[in-house]
């Protein structure tokens, strides 16, 4: 008898938690400063590839989602602290991040990082010059591994400004991010590309949040299968971007 009430109680608990899940708002964290992944447009709206994708995933999974903007520096502590439930911020699923949070499958193939410099720069600066990178990124770690002089800036903007003003010889960052700058003017060119570590850009969730991760994984599967994810990738990143088969 006692056993029965116990299992009934746990069933009720299970029911009530799934009930909460259904009407619960999923809060999605993003940075809002990394075009074209996520950025704030002139109308003061959060837009970008990840915002479109996130909304579509929520629609398919029948979740109510709400976006939260958070600084890059504290984006993971705030996730594990429970201020929001997912991260979609151009975050590459690296091993060290996977120690602390869990990732869904990648929704964008790993994209190379690129060295960008003023037109006419000698490519040897990659090994011996001054290379700018945003602090606390995969790329700053990559430059630290080489013999080049690493110079770190708090925002990605400033790294580009440093190349322009001549403080740095080149900048190392995600190629997709740099492309918008390189296309815009004819002063920059790419010197080289390197593959960063990691599985590709993925959505981060708390390690204990298995249910939510499964939900989103299923939705991403669905979008990969019907080709809508590829369409979205082409729309935001152009034809050259690697697609999913």
């Amino acid at each position, binding site marked *: 008898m006692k056993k029965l009430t116990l299992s009934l109680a746990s069933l009720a608990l299970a029911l009530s938690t799934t009930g909460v899940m259904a009407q619960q708002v999923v809060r999605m964290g993003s940075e809002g400063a990394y075009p074209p992944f996520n950025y704030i447009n002139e109308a003061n709206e959060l837009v970008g590839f990840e915002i479109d994708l996130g909304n579509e995933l929520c629609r398919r999974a029948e979740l109510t989602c709400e976006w939260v903007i958070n600084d890059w520096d504290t984006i993971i502590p705030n996730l*594990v602290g429970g201020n929001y439930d997912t991260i979609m911020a151009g975050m590459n699923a690296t091993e*060290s*991040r996977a*120690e602390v*949070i869990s990732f869904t499958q990648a929704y964008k193939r790993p994209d190379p990082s690129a060295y960008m410099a003023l037109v006419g720069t000698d490519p040897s600066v990659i090994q011996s010059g001054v290379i700018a990178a945003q*602090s606390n990124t995969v790329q700053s770690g990559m430059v630290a591994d080489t013999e080049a*002089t690493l110079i*770190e800036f708090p925002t990605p903007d400033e790294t580009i400004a440093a190349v322009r003003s*001549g*403080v740095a010889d080149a900048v190392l960052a995600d190629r997709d991010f740099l492309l918008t700058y390189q296309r815009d003017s004819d002063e920059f060119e790419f010197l080289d590309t390197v593959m960063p570590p990691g599985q590709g850009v993925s959505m981060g969730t708390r390690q204990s949040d298995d249910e939510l991760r499964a939900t989103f994984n299923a939705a991403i599967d669905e979008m990969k299968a019907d080709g809508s994810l590829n369409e979205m990738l082409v729309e935001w990143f152009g034809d050259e971007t690697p697609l999913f088969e």
Partner: protein
Amino acid sequence: MRTCAESFQGLILRSMGRQHGDALLPRGMEITFCDQVFLIGSGLIWNLYFAVLALAFGFFLATGLALAKASPRAWLRKPAGGFIFLFRGSPLFIQFFFAYEALSLLPRTGVDIPLLVTTITLETQWLTRAWAGALIVLFFNTAAYSAEIFHGALKAIPRGDLEAADAYGLTGLARFRRVIWPTMLRLAWPSYTNEAIFLFHATALVYFSAFPAWQQMGDALYYARYFADQTFNPFVAYPIAAAYFVLLTLVLIGVFGYINRRLNRHLPRAARARIRFRPQYIR
């Protein structure tokens, strides 16, 4: 897992450059508690460098500015007042930004100064580095704040002291050096202690806003942020940095308190003690 001794050897001077310790900083899950303690401690070298030099240079400029501001001549008073207003009236954060932007606009190749026979090329590149650029900003900043404090103290010098100096026939530089300056310092010292604490804390802003870190050489906060980011846990690295700062602030208060006692040692014992000790019968 490396031992604490290895961490100490590899990291304690790392903020001075790659050649003074491990070329690569510890990463990800291999970071130990000792790594954090020693590397953040190593960053304090820069905080001390900025604080000590800015305070030392700033002290003299501040004395000059305070005298200029108290001067009856408008061409001295006005610029000094403007300088003080500009640096006291705006956030240090923004001053750093402007300094960096302005200094990085200087031509990369240097500035040519034509002299009669030859031309000297003045290197400007080093000015965009934190050790020079940020030091200049901090120097101007503390000079402005201290000048305001000194100026207030200058006005508060008891008339009797000045009359006594006159009676002894002291004039000009001797009168300033032996009467005005020591009295001004004595009166200004408690406020100046506060300013020194603020400046020491302000050194944490150097690598935070505008000035880039080269080869991962940074101050205590730079490394604390590095660890907070690598371990994704802000509750270890930042408290370590905070504890270091509390400790050094206590040392600072001790040193300044010692100087305060030296400055006041000629006063009658009761007058000295009155500021610090007071029976607690009112609550």
